[in-house]
């Protein structure tokens, strides 16, 4: 069996379908790339990340709750959940202070969606996890320290 040929076929086929979808307007890669907040995801300092998110210096709020383990045994998979009890929450961002890529994920919450998201992140070392919430144009945050016994960003 000629594996190289098969891979080439597969790659070609994948591209074809992607092109077709893009042409049909089902996905718009150009738009998607433009919307991705590169500045925020490239930020290496907390202040840079905050300003790239447009957050400035958010106020700490008890209405933003982070659900994360106190101690994560495996830094490669740390479950993090954020709940915002602030009315008109528009977006939620999850930041890991000591990761090379601080901003893990941002979520836009349209009206009708509950401000309650859960995901899993990698953590290279023990760090504070920040949740930054935008509501009514204002920014709020909460943080929680997660201790990591085995880092998830190494080889």
């Amino acid at each position, binding site marked *: 069996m000629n594996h190289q040929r098969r891979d080439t076929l597969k790659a070609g086929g994948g591209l074809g379908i992607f092109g077709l979808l893009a042409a049909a307007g089902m996905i718009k890669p150009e738009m998607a790339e433009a919307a991705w907040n590169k500045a925020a995801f490239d930020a290496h300092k907390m202040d840079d990340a905050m300003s790239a998110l447009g957050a400035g210096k958010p106020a700490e709020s008890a209405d933003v709750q982070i659900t994360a383990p106190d101690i994560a045994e495996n830094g490669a998979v*740390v479950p993090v959940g954020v709940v915002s009890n602030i009315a008109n929450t528009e977006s939620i961002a999850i930041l890991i202070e000591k990761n090379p890529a601080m901003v893990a994920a941002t*979520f836009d919450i349209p009206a009708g969606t509950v401000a309650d*998201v859960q995901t899993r992140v990698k953590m290279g070392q023990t760090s504070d996890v920040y949740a930054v919430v935008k509501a009514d144009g204002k920014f709020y945050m909460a943080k929680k320290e997660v201790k990591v016994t085995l880092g998830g960003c*190494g080889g």
Partner: protein
Amino acid sequence: MANPMRIRAAAKDGVTEVRVLMSHVMETGQRKDSSGAVIPAHFITELTAKHNDKVVLSAQFGPSVSTNPYLAFKFNGGAKGDKVVVSWVDNKGDSRTDEVQVA
């Protein structure tokens, strides 16, 4: 093309909870292989979830999100049999769209 996502959507008391497990390497671009060469970054950048053509969540991911990303969220409304469509795009332009009926 990447492997399909596993999506569960369940409606309860007027709120639909959606859980998505994507299949993706989520390579950070920080790691090195055994010969010391940097493994190029390859991760999902954007994700959109729609309920009956209405966007209920859009997310942007960075490389800090775990391999095979998991995502759970809730939206108001949604009834049994409604369609929930989730699609993502990664930094290499690959994409994947999957749909599920609300249970």
